[in-house]
């Protein structure tokens, strides 16, 4: 492995700024690695849907930019002008967006270079990255296992040393769960802090972009340059302060809340053991561990699987074969064209969620499903507000299991949905949460989730950094 691949993105940016590393050399090393994985298809990790052909010209205005020259892998669903953006779906076959997502533009201004687009579950619907028109992604720790999803390509690419860092999106856990299953860091920021403009929508009241990185400092650095108000996104908010790079090595005086509802039943024994060891470590670092109650958290998954499909069924109505993407050939009439385009273009999971969503929104069922789910959402947000009056941060396992085998859960959608059990409550409440690797179970990574109140990203990152420095998790990049 080339030495430069061992550098964190933070160190690479510094080496480029100091003149000891050439941005072109760094890009070419990663480009060659990514291209080789792309060429191998499902014999490789299958992380990418597109890889840059040559280094993009450095923007002269970016020469002094803080992230100058650091390559970035971007989840397929971010629109990138002139570069294929399909959200992992056949229905957007050949689509070349006429504009670039705000967050990608922002990062380019900060100096990053677009290395590749990453594989994902179709329209970000999935927890295993097996629902992609580009085929399944494999976990670099064990190629017979899934990387998690839906940002599975981003997570596997970072874990496998095929990209220094990557962008993902998280609707119910789609950054945190694959980060956990691949042994890397993934953060979902406060809803509204990163612009959604140019992200191909899944569930608009939940979707949020975030970083997938090898360490906590890289996550803070990337996120710092992602947040900010964007007039093109009506739900965009001004982040109240600069995201600080974390430096904490102790947790003195930090009150960590452990919700019994998310740390007991349904969590694999090996995951719980690693979680408990992390709590003991946090205590050694000075943290106070307190039990907290999130009484409605066990209902979060039910509410989520009403709200997210309902919003998706509306968002995905735009894919009709008229303006872009796939159109079924030789249709008898307009309705036949719509029907056959959507039949041919959407995969099974997307169809399942459109049906769930339209059912939940249908006249006569609206109050029983969508209306109730939105009320549960209120209770979940209230639970968190009450808990944060007693503790500073909440900790849980990120996912109930370690990476599972390819195909193991594809026949049982409900079993697949249960992967999101610990991550969905934070999504419904709109609060920030990070997953960091905290140990191994059966030789596979376990993720620790740390959540805080809205806009507490710097505090969450600091706590994650202190634990990371103590845990010293070894990312086994040699798997590639």
């Amino acid at each position, binding site marked *: 492995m080339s030495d430069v691949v061992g550098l964190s993105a933070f160190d690479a940016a510094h080496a480029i700024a100091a003149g000891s590393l050439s941005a072109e050399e760094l890009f070419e090393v990663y480009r060659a690695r990514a291209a080789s994985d792309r060429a191998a298809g499902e014999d490789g990790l299958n992380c990418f849907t597109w890889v840059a052909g040559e280094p993009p010209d450095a923007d002269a205005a970016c020469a002094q930019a803080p992230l100058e020259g650091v390559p970035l892998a971007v989840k397929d669903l971010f629109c990138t002008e002139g570069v294929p953006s399909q959200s992992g779906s056949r229905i957007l076959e050949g689509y070349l967006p006429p504009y670039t997502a705000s967050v990608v533009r922002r990062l380019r201004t900060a100096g990053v270079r677009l290395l590749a687009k990453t594989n994902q579950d179709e329209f970000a619907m999935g927890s295993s990255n097996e629902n992609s028109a580009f085929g399944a992604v494999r976990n670099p720790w064990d190629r017979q296992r899934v990387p998690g999803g839906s940002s599975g390509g981003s997570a596997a690419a970072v874990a496998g040393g095929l990209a220094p860092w990557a962008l993902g999106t998280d609707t119910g856990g789609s950054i945190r769960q694959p980060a956990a299953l691949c042994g890397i860091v993934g953060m979902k920021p406060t809803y509204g802090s990163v612009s959604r403009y140019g992200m191909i929508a899944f569930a608009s009241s939940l979707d949020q972009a975030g970083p997938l990185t090898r360490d906590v400092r890289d996550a803070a650095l990337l996120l710092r340059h992602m947040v900010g108000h964007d007039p093109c996104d009506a739900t965009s908010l001004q982040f109240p302060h600069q995201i600080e790079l974390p430096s904490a090595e102790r947790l003195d005086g930090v009150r960590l809340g452990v919700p019994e509802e998310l740390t007991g039943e349904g969590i694999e024994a090996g995951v719980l053991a690693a979680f408990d060891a992390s709590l003991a470590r946090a205590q050694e670092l000075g943290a106070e561990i307190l039990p907290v109650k999130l009484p409605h958290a066990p209902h979060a998954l039910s509410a989520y699987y*009403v709200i997210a499909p309902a919003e998706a069924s509306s968002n995905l109505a735009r894919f009709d074969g008229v303006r872009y993407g796939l159109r079924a050939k030789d249709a008898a009439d307009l309705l036949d064209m719509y029907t056959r385009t959507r039949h041919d273009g959407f995969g099974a999971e997307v169809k399942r969620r459109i049906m769930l969503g339209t059912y939940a929104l249908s006249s006569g069922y609206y109050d029983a499903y969508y209306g109730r789910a939105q009320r549960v959402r209120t209770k979940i947000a209230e639970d968190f507000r009450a808990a944060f009056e007693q503790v500073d941060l909440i900790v849980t396992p990120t996912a109930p299991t370690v990476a599972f085998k390819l195909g193991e859960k594809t026949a049982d959608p*409900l079993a697949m949905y249960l992967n999101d059990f610990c991550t969905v409550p934070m999504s419904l409440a709109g609060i920030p949460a990070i997953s960091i690797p905290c140990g191994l179970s059966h030789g596979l990574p376990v993720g620790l989730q740390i959540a805080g109140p809205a806009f507490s990203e710097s505090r969450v990152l600091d706590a994650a950094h202190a634990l990371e420095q103590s845990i010293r998790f070894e990312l086994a990049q040699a798997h590639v």
Partner: protein
Amino acid sequence: MARELSAVLDHVARIGALDLDDVPPTSHVVGDSMSTHPALRPDEPRPCLPREVALAQAPAVSDDGFLVPSPQA
């Protein structure tokens, strides 16, 4: 797919057991009170995509518009 959807709907139906009568619904979770910006941007006209760019990705075009099969066969 019917069996799978039924299993999901059975799980979802658990929220039917909660007492939510006096609870307001939440559609947008991080409120305006946390923002220094108003929820809506100023209502000012701005340029949109040029027509040729908007049409460039269409499967079929005709006379500066999107061409679709007739609604009636």
